[in-house]
């Protein structure tokens, strides 16, 4: 399995960060790889609830993802399935946010994992938790904020 992990310190308490991750108002302010607008931010934030997100990049292309919330524990953990609407990256992946309180803020750890193959996709929960081998690429954002 392949995953991307990102750790970021944020000068805001975990509940505020959690709400930024889960409210449509918050999502509209941050989702996307560039400054293009968020067009759809629908989130039914409960276990089994679904979300749908659509954003436009500055190059004009639009991208949509949707999925289901697997874990919702305000303010420390959020996990969901993730699937792009376009065929560029087919299959279901998994996104997890862990929020840890630190002095004057929050340490956010994001992990986005792809599933190894169609078989593990079909048995997805078991596959994720169980036998999959994992190669995690850990990196820190270069602009890691100092929390003073």
């Amino acid at each position: 399995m392949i995953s991307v992990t990102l750790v970021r310190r944020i000068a805001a308490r975990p509940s505020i960060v959690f709400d930024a991750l889960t409210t449509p108002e918050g999502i509209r302010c941050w989702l996307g790889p560039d400054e293009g607008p968020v067009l759809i931010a629908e989130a039914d934030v409960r276990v089994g609830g679904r979300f749908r997100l659509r954003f436009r990049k500055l190059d004009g292309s639009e991208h949509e993802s949707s999925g289901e919330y697997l874990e919702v524990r305000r303010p420390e953990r959020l996990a969901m399935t993730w699937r792009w609407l376009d065929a560029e990256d087919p299959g279901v992946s998994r996104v997890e946010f862990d929020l840890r309180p630190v002095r004057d803020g929050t340490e956010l750890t994001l992990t986005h994992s792809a599933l190894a193959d169609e078989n593990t996709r079909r048995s997805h929960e078991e596959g994720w938790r169980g036998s999959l081998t994992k190669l995690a690429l850990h990196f820190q954002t270069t602009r890691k904020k100092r929390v003073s």
Partner: protein
Amino acid sequence: MVNSQMRLGRTFAALVDPTRRAILTRLERAGTATVSELASPFAIRLPAVMKHLGVLDEAGLISRSKSGRTVTVRLRAAPMREALAWLRRYERFWSESIDRLAAYAEAREAAARAHPRKRRR
């Protein structure tokens, strides 16, 4: 349909093992190597090395050609490129998103401190 995630999965499963990563690193430097050259730095026996090479071959990461009694191993870059493209795509997507998320949350935090009565749980 040959699913790109299946290919990615094979590539990354092959990359999980440190011996296999060391073999690839060596091939990356040298271009090609014989099986015995690849086996020499490792404290494992030739059959174990052959097994690792089998996994790398199935993942499309190397190719093997036989000439007489010598097997030459060659690096194939395409699956690695695909895997790295996946990583880069998500790395960029999330690091940009999380930077803006941080800015938004920090503005909310500042606002909550300026107006403590509105402070949320």
